[in-house]
Every structure is written in structure tokens, then in C-alpha cells.
């Protein structure tokens, strides 16, 4: 897109671009649902293979209070875990890039933590926090989210144009001031990319962890119990609820990104790669 300064001139193509951005996934989604429904009607396989979308949607309505409750329980774990993991990740990144000692202690610790298959720890965490406590699942989300946030934010805080740091030093700006004025804004795009990846990671982590323990009225147990009772449409309804939570969090992250860094090329829309 060419840079046209006048708002009146840009608004028409901008609206069109926005329409295109929203219509493409909607058309794709509807097509998939239609093909899905139609092919099941034609092939008519046994019910446990895959229920048609219509059955899943009616399962949601039939069991609305149950699915809604479960989505709220799991959603709470996902959101709190995501926020806590992001905060711990950002704070660690700030410490590590600011203090050498912190870097020498925390970086190897964080890297070795990332090598641990965290989800595999779910049964152990359940033993620590109590089989029916949601704490263990929350911890798993926190740890899983921590790592990408930490690594990416630390990268954004350090990968700064050296002449920009020199400029600040020539004005005798304090280290803290340089962090605030240069490093943090530079890290914002890195942070938001990591946060977007983390939203889906958090959904997966929470639901899989729930297979092993935690509250029994959450999405994970709802999926295993419904599947055990061969109520597959209900199991799929719970999966759909998890999907919607992930999609909603992703969209919220995108909105936050726009608010936090309106200056960035990916948001101003002048980047040819973004279109």
C-alpha cells in the first residue's frame, strides 16, 4: 500500500482491506462446516468417528449450562495462568538484561526449565497441590507461557540499534531511562508475538493438564467423561468451547497490540509482507 497522508483517501481502501481480512476466514470456516456436514450425511459413518457440526451445536445448546460452567472454570485457569506467566516472563527478561548476575543465574535455569516436558509433570503437580486443586493446572500454564515470553522479550530488550544506545549515553541518560525509552518500546513487538503464541499454548496446556486432575467440572474432565459415555457430540462441544476461548484471547491480544504500539509497521499497514 502506498503512503497517502490524507485520511479521506485512505479510508475507502482501508475499509475494503478490513472486509477482506474478515471475510476470508469466515468464508473458509463456513465452507469447512458445509463440507463436513455434507460428507457425513453422504458417508454416514458410525457416530463415534465424527459428529456433524449441527449435532455439536445442538449438544452445546442442550448442555449449555454444563459446557458454560466448564468453560468458565478452564477459562479462569487459562487467563490467570497466561497473565501470571507473562508477568513472570517479562520481569525475568528485564532482570536478566539489566543485571549481569541475574542473567548468569536465571538464564541457564530458564533454559533448562524449557527442556522439561512440562505437561508430563501434571500428575506430579497434582500430588503436590492436591488432586482436585486447580493450582497445579494453573502452575503448568504459567510455566509453559513463561518461556516464550521470557526468551522473546529478552531478545527485544537486547537487540537494539547500538547507535540508539550511544545516543542516549551521550545525553548521560541513566540505564533505567535507556531501558524505558529504548529497550522496552523495542521489545514490544517481540513480546506481543510471544503472547499470541502463548494463548493457544495456554489453552492446550490447561485442558491436557485437566485430564490428569484438578477441578472435575472443567473442560478437560467434561471431554474425557463425555467420550467415556460415548456422548461424542458433547465432547466435541467442550473442544469447541476451548477453541473459542483460544480465539477470543488471540483477538484480545491483537487489540492490545494495536493499542500499545500504533507506530509499528505491522499495524500501520505499510508493510507489504503484512498484506
Amino acid at each position, binding site marked *: 500500500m502506498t503512503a497517502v497522508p490524507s485520511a479521506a483517501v485512505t479510508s475507502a481502501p482501508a475499509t475494503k482491506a478490513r472486509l477482506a481480512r474478515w471475510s476470508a476466514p469466515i468464508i473458509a470456516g463456513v465452507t469447512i462446516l458445509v463440507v463436513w456436514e455434507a460428507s457425513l450425511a453422504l458417508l454416514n459413518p458410525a457416530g463415534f468417528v465424527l459428529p456433524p457440526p449441527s449435532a455439536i451445536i445442538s449438544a452445546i445448546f442442550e448442555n449449555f449450562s454444563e459446557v458454560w460452567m466448564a468453560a468458565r472454570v478452564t477459562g479462569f485457569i487459562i487467563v490467570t495462568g497466561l497473565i501470571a506467566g507473562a508477568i513472570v516472563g517479562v520481569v525475568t527478561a528485564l532482570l536478566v538484561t539489566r543485571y549481569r548476575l541475574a542473567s548468569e543465574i536465571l538464564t541457564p535455569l530458564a533454559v533448562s526449565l524449557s527442556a522439561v516436558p512440562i505437561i508430563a509433570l501434571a500428575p506430579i503437580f497434582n500430588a503436590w497441590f492436591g488432586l482436585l486443586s486447580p493450582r497445579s493446572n494453573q502452575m503448568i500454564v504459567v510455566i509453559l507461557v513463561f518461556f516464550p515470553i521470557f526468551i522473546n522479550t529478552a531478545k527485544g530488550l537486547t537487540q537494539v*540499534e547500538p547507535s540508539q544506545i550511544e*545516543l542516549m549515553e*551521550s*545525553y*548521560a541518560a541513566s540505564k533505567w531511562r535507556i531501558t524505558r525509552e*529504548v529497550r522496552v*518500546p523495542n521489545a514490544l513487538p517481540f513480546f506481543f508475538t510471544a503472547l499470541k503464541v502463548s494463548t493457544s499454548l495456554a489453552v492446550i496446556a490447561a485442558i491436557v493438564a485437566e485430564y490428569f486432575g484438578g477441578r472435575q467440572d472443567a473442560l478437560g474432565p467434561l471431554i474425557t467423561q463425555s467420550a467415556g459415555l460415548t456422548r461424542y457430540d458433547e465432547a466435541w462441544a467442550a473442544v469447541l468451547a476451548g477453541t473459542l476461548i483460544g480465539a477470543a484471547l488471540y483477538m484480545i491480544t491483537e487489540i492490545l497490540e494495536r493499542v500499545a504500539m500504533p507506530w509499528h509497521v505491522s499495524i500501520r499497514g505499510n508493510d507489504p509482507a503484512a498484506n
Partner: protein
Amino acid sequence: MSDHAVNVQRVSKVFNLGKTNEVHAVDNVDLTINNGEFVTLIGPSGCGKSTLLRLIASLVEPTGGSIEVNGKPAEQARLDREYGMAFQKAGLFDWRSVSKNIELPLELMGWSKSERASRAQEMLELVKLPEFGDHHPAELSGGMQQRIAIARSLAFNPSLLLMDEPFGALDEMTREHMQDELLRIWDETDTTVVFVTHSIAEAVYLSSRVVVMSPRPGQISEIIEVGLGDRDTSTREDPEFFKMVTVVREALRSVESQ
């Protein structure tokens, strides 16, 4: 205040000391610059011009010798905010509007909001971009960004202005305009300027002295007094100007052929 703005004594800078990739970027350099003088550094690529400039700015530590600025150690002068700097790369902050970029050093120095805003507008007019204050740097051409960076370096009337090929990215006409503006500002204030360039004509036009440097190790090979008097539009066509250009060219040629 001492009458020397810059006093460089037997200064050396070795990068990667003791390693296989050791570089003697600056070797045993002596240079004194008087208050209010305009000095350019010129020399082949890699001869240590930028390093010498950054040593004066106390952005890198010398491995030997001492540097005083305005009668105090360079580091103290930096902490007292006596420098303005402009680099070859504009180095503007994308997350700040053009005005806010110019205001950055003023913010660090505690100017009030209204003082900053009016000063930024003044500087924008100086670099002939008065209507671009609210734009973002990414919306400007490379040359326009460079003019903003120069405006930023001049905004707080620093007593010592250090410029590393600041006009390299500009087209010829803008470049000449910026040269004249820089000379005007230099004339109106008591600023001392140390200016790195690759352009012989620019060095001669701007400075009272041209410092010619030679590479490996980085040393001063010659210091040429220009002595053209006040510059005006006729200076660029003055036979005396061309004579000095030839003098500097020959000095550079003998450095290159070493």
C-alpha cells in the same frame, strides 16, 4: 573554562586487545581543538575517524592517553551533558513522533513541556520540515530522517557538537543547504564542532582546520589550516576554495598510497 574545547593527549584505542583480531583503531593521537572551532576529520575508510569521535564523546574508553573536554575529563563532560551527537544513521525512535524525537534530549534535561514543544517547532523550521512534527519517522524519506536527527542534535545548543558523516545520505542541494545552516548555527552560538566526512569539498567548506588521518594504525598524518574567512554563496566558486580542496586531496592521496 579552559580555552581548549577538546584536548586529546597521546590517545590510543585498541579493540580486542590481546586477541587474534586485535585492531589498533587509534594510535597515539594528539589533537587540541579551540573553543568555537570547527574541525573536520577526513581519511580513508577504517582509519579511526568514528573511533576518535566516540573517544571524545566518552562512548568508548581509551586504552591509553587522556581526553579533556571543556577542561574536564571527557566522561565528566558527557555526564554534564555538553555534547550533541549526530550519526550517519539517523537513529530516530520509531515509537516517537518526529517532534517527540527532537524533544528527547530536552526531556532528559528537564525542559518544560511548552519549552520543548516550541523549541522542537523552531528546529523543524530550521531543517525545513515545519509541517512534519506529528508524523512518524517511518513516514519520512531517509534524507528527511537525517535532517530530523540533526535537528535533535542541535536542539539544546550543546557546547560541543560531534557529527559522524551526518550529511552522507542527503542529496546535493539539501546537503549544501544543511552545510550553510550548520555554519550559521555555529556562527550564532559558541558551539565547537568536530565533524567526520568523506567529502573533501565539505571538509574545506565547513572547517577552520582539516585533520587528515591515516589507517593501520589510525594516526593523524597532517592538519591543514583552511583560512577561507566567512563563507557565503560565492565561496563554493572561489579559486581559493578550489586551491584548498587540492591541498586536502593531495594530503589524502599521500595517505592512501602509504
